[in-house]
């Protein structure tokens, strides 16, 4: 499974990280550290990745490849 974090839309709410710390990382500004890139989700973490994605108030995260 791969998810993409939009570089423009991420506004540093930090909800993805708060709800799925194994999948999402924050940078020192409190924004998604991988914004603008596509994250390869570790096998077994798909549900967490989706939970983090659903938590984003900006809808900045989307699944690009289903696991």
């Amino acid at each position, binding site marked *: 499974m791969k998810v993409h974090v939009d570089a423009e839309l991420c506004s*540093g709410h*930090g909800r993805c990280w708060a709800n799925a710390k194994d999948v999402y990382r924050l940078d020192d500004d409190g924004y998604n550290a991988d914004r603008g890139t596509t994250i390869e989700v570790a096998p077994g973490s798909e549900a967490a990745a989706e939970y983090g994605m659903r938590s984003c108030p900006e809808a900045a995260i989307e699944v690009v490849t289903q696991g």
Partner: protein
Amino acid sequence: MTQTDDDLGNSTDDLKQRFGRDMFNDFDIDDPQFNEHFFEILDEMVDKCPVVRSNVGDGYYMVTRQADVRKAGQDWHTFSSAKGYMPNRPEGLPYLMPEESDPPKHTSWRQRLNPFLAPKTVAQYDTQIRADANTLIDRFIDRGECEFVSEFGAKLPGWAFFKNVLGVPTDDLDQLVDGVERGTFAPPEERGPAFAGVFEYLGKYLEIRSNEPPRGDLVDVIAAGVAYEDGSTSPWADRVSILVDLTFGGIATTTYVMAGAIHHLATHQGDRETLVDNPELIEGAVEEFVRVFPPVVALGRTCTRDVELAGTQLKEGDFVLLGYGAASRDPRVVENPAKIDIGRDTVLHSAFGVGPHRCIGSNLARLELRATLEEWLKRIPDFGLRPGTAPTYETGILRTMKNLDLVF
């Protein structure tokens, strides 16, 4: 007559009967009826009226659904903050930075300020905030009663901000917190002077700090200023404005969520016992309290071009409020939104705004709320509303709870 017109006709009469005015087509965010029937009106709006219209002053709109609030909040090119966040803004009022600016000026400030309010940074304040919460509780716990707003809710966020984030001298703390409290809760004519005193202090403090060795904190960054796109350095007035904006935005707002949460727990024994027995659920409960007690009811944008939003044609120059409070109760996004459910799986709300102007203090606010509930429930697990009392509220673009009498 079309079906739509018929529906609208009925609802106009219905609204007038229930709320004394047509809250869809003749809205006034400062109407005492809106304060009185706050949640009921928000639910009506988000259900039936995606764009509310006001005829007050120059007139303004308010979008109520989460998808539309998000669209406008994210599209800063079209929905600009540079002409201020309040409708019918008084002539000559200086703009607050960075809240009342657009990228790239907004970005140049936010990039410098963000690290000081990121989760990792504010986590360092956790121990101090919890100690302060306990200091406040110590003052009234033996009395078996307190007025929560003035004795706790209006104090802790001020202490958290001025002590930890700004590092002001301890001796000045009471004066500052008192100034913000009076600026928020005193009779309206006394509020301006109270806030003016706080802002004057902040200007002097910034000047003092700019002449002292750097401490590596937020105040250093503000005092040094940032480079704007045109190559100029931010003027001094903009730097003071940053401090004013952070102070104005971050203290009384958190007070309202705190008071709302404590009021809910005082009046819902089941939820209170759940959180006392399962403190690990407090973090999720905080998110729900932020959703249902929106201190920022709405903040505005000015259209930079003609644009259609939620089926309504807006013109260049029109003022639109982003209805954060309504959007957090959108049944299209939140199941059974009128219910306060501390165990929700996903709490999707707009309480901290959306788009590049997302509340910069959101991480600090969450920490203060979590520390408050955890420390409070440890010390005072059983409490209720003083019989015969009820909280009173005040609502405009911001909402406050003015009193909350508790017994324990």
